[in-house]
């Protein structure tokens, strides 16, 4: 009885140790890549103590990638990657079977949406300069409305709101543009939403909101490790050069 009892306890310890060993093996033998986290509405970014991450490769524009195939939810897909100048990787295509000779990441289709919209907003600032912005979402504001756009360091829209002169520094230190909407252009496209199993990052209790408040406009990157079959695992989160493990 005693031997059997302790053997079963040992089995439980081995299961836990096996999980750790499996992860180490994955990190040691896998290929490390950097992925850019896409700008999201910061109100939705941190839920409790998980950082919810959406990547640029999570929402794929099938028209721009010239992909004609149709996809079903839960279908396994391989997103072909190509390097960018800053060392991160972007999507260059989507395949249903494992691509050979190319770098790829394995994901699961969340959904395919045919009539998704891509917005191109032309903003006229107070000096009369025109700015062309591509927010990832848009909420009902018409031409002529005065809007403040918060931008990240690469000039991408992280959030926007109707201009409110009573609010000082609405973008909390990050670059911003304020002006009147000159033009709103909507282009329909086929969107493929893909999940890679690396969409949440655990942080210390209460820490999520601290990171959130200081992150608007900052560059968020994730270091992931790819297995041979393209499955990814999170290794670290980089917020403007500061690393969280």
């Amino acid at each position: 009885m005693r031997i059997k009892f302790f053997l079963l306890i040992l089995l439980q310890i081995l299961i836990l140790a096996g999980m750790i060993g499996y992860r180490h093996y994955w990190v040691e033998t896998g290929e490390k890549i950097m992925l850019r986290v896409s700008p999201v509405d910061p109100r939705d970014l941190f839920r409790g103590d998980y950082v919810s991450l959406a990547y640029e490769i999570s929402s794929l524009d099938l028209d721009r990638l010239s992909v004609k195939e149709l996809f079903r939810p839960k279908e396994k897909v391989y997103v072909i990657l190509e390097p960018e100048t800053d060392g991160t990787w972007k999507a260059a295509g989507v395949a249903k079977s494992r691509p050979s000779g190319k770098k790829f990441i394995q994901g699961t289709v969340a959904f395919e949406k045919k009539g998704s919209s891509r917005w191109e907003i032309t903003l006229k600032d107070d000096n009369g300069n025109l700015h062309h912005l591509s927010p990832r979402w848009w909420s009902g504001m018409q031409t002529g409305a005065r809007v403040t756009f918060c931008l990240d360091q690469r000039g991408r829209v992280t959030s926007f709101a109707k201009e409110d002169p009573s609010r000082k520094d609405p973008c909390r230190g990050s670059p911003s543009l304020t002006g009147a909407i000159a033009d709103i252009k909507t282009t329909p496209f086929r969107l493929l939403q893909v999940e890679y199993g690396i969409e949440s990052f655990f942080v210390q209790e209460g820490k999520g909101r601290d990171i959130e408040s200081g992150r608007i406009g900052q560059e968020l990157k994730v270091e992931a490790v790819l297995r041979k079959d393209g499955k990814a695992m999170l290794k670290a989160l980089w917020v403007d050069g500061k690393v969280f493990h």
Partner: protein
Amino acid sequence: MGKKIDRGFARKLREEIEIWEREGLVSPILRDRILAYYQMKARFGGPLATGKLITVLSVLGSVLAGVGVILFVAANWSAIPVWGKLAVIFIPMAASYCLGYLLRYERGDFPRVGAGFILLGALLFGAGIFLIAQIYHLSVHFANGPLVWGLGVLPLAYLLRFKTLLSLSLIVLLIWLGMETHSWLSPKAFEFLGSVPADSRFISLFFIAGLTLWGLGLMHRGYEGLRRISGPYIVLGMLCAFGSGFLFTFDLYGGRFAAPVLWPFYLALSGLFLLSLFGLALSSEKPLGWVWEAVFLLVLLGLALYLTFLFSGLPGKGHRDLVLSANLIYALAVLIVLFLGYLREFPVYVNIALLFFVLDLFVRYFDFFWELLPRSIFFIIGGLTLLIGGVLLERKRRKILGSFKKAQDED
């Protein structure tokens, strides 16, 4: 290992020993020696008067301590280095198991507290799985966590014949079943029952899972070595089957009860159910009326499989015939379980049957009279019915359970 004695046993012993002495079965000296023996037991930590309380406190203590460890790690995430986090997982887990084994089996003087420590060890094992997954961001397939936890605890529950460990393992495996099947389904296809998301495809799945657990419990009752741990299977199985069966009594027949993609789960569970009935048929000591119960469960499984594989949903609402049939089957199930409980003198059957009888009565009262009666009268009649009905039902329940006790005394 210490001999376990509880309050009921002590009271009965005192009453019986008076009779034994009057009948000349024991001498006054022997009577005093027996009484002294059990009182000694009580004085030296034997759970004479507070056995149940100690069990409850030990289980509660285990759960609280387990939650405390998780919260401690969560609250000090950055401050604790990786080896510290791992130490917080491994050391308390191993220590709980060792201390539990020592107290329950080696020294034997605190068996219930020892059992509490072993349960704490199993909870810390589960916490360890999730903490390691978080430390290393192993979020690839979240449902694997409960699966590994449930399967890791199951052999220990069998080795020690622990009902608490088995209950933990089965509950965790039911959670896994829900998470795993949910991940197989498209999230967009969710249906709503009022404001509550109630995907009707889970109803038949958990109904079949409940029947499977119930069947496994019956099989365990048939074998002397396993009888001790049949309870969690039967109780969880009945709760799961009656709980999901109760949902069939609503007008949900506009939707489907099956997701074709889940067929491996339907077949695996049904296969396990049939194997358990086969095992019961081969067992040496079958429970009284087992054939009737097995046939009844088989019919229910047949109905569930019909709804799962052949029923494709009827358009719209107002399927009165189906709802009425489901209500009749539900009422029949309550009666059969009540009868089986009475036949075998199983309080758990009687209690569960009455619980779901009252639940059904309450909900049907709302269904039928909400529109017909003025609100004030509705609530007054409802309240009075519940109060009076509750008293009458409780008296009846006690009478039935009391008759079991009396019959046991006479035996």
